[in-house]
């Protein structure tokens, strides 16, 4: 494959599905999704993987938003001449930046769920926040939250049940907002541009 994509594990699955459906010559390489909770590690992890991939791919790109690196990821991209997906976090890539901002404006106590978070809730939220070992911490974490908003990309009944369960675990009412993958797909298309389509437009290096 000429193009390698360093992808956040929390979006790697839909990214790989889109890549496959579109028939792009892109190899998707996920990094652990739990880095989300230790964002100070993300930039270095991306740098290491991107460097390794650059040895055997013409082009490397980064399927991450800023993700709480507060500019550190952009610095790595500038250093290695890479491009990344737009936005502050993956939620922007599903819902769109302005729509996401309005959810949080309307109700600052909004906790966001994605299909990934819903599916992996026990591991990525419950266990990671220690709620399995210390259920009393739910108060410390979620005392000020008033609702869970599921940015549903592919709301099957099975996922819907899991989302209901997740919201119930947090003790929050669930709002479902169907987002699909349209925005993510457009963002990937813009990111991969000519290099994925094999045309001669500016390569990403």
């Amino acid at each position, binding site marked *: 494959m000429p193009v390698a994509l360093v992808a956040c594990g929390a979006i790697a699955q839909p990214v790989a599905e889109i890549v496959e459906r579109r028939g792009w010559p892109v190899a998707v390489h996920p990094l652990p999704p739990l880095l989300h909770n230790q964002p100070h590690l993300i930039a270095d992890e991306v740098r290491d993987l991107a460097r390794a991939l650059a040895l055997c791919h013409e082009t490397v790109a980064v399927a991450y938003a800023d993700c709480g690196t507060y500019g550190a990821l952009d610095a790595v991209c500038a250093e290695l001449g890479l491009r990344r997906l737009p936005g502050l976090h993956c939620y922007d890539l599903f819902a769109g930046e302005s729509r996401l901002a309005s959810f949080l404006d309307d109700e600052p106590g909004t906790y966001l769920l994605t299909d990934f978070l819903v599916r992996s809730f026990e591991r990525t939220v419950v266990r990671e*926040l*220690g709620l399995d070992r210390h259920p009393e911490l739910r108060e410390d974490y979620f005392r000020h939250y008033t609702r869970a908003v599921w940015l549903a990309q592919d709301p099957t009944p099975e996922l819907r049940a899991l989302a209901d369960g997740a919201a119930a675990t947090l003790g929050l009412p669930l709002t479902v907002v169907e987002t699909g993958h349209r925005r993510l797909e457009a963002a990937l298309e813009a990111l991969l541009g000519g290099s994925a389509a094999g045309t001669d437009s500016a390569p990403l290096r």
Partner: protein
Amino acid sequence: MTSPDEVLQGLYDETLVGNAPRVLELTEEGLALGMEPQSLLFDALIPSLEEVGARFERGDFFVPEMLIAGRAMAGAMERLRPLLAETGVETVGKFLMGTVKGDVHDIGKNLVNIMLEGAGFEVIDLGVQVAPEKFVAAIEEHQPDIVGFSAFLTTTMPMFKANMNALEKAGMRDQVIVMVGGAPVTQEYADAVGADGYAADASATVKRAKALLHEKRSKVPA
């Protein structure tokens, strides 16, 4: 019978692992042995929470470990607070704290509060989602030495500036020291919004707050 040294070691160890009931028991044991509340605090509880912070920095601890340790220490503080007040030691200063409007992250802020209180500050916590007007009103009411703004999202950090503007407008800017903090905040950002101080974690906040107070007080003519 437990010795004072064993109480201190026990308090340190049990706070570190967040064993709240045991920390409370040991606090009682220490007091029963006639130990000074200050000693329990400065020789065991605070060093333990500092170690928790250091382990968090190193990546050995994650948020839950930090939270349970904070809870354990807060439980002991509940018990010690009235006793510390009785000893008549003057408070170091008054610290008004809040998470900015639009933001509900508060774990970091709460830890800072515990450490400030442990270090002898009187802490008034306005909670989360504190609007600029509310900060202004609370400064008016409580006359703090320092006001702290906490923010955790890139999208809520600009509230620091909004708060500063509100203080200016209310003619209070010179009256209080402003400190800012939270995961996304940097010294450069703090400088850019015109804050007096920034600190990256709870122990650093205590040090910085004391230094800023000292600076301010030594400037005021006697």
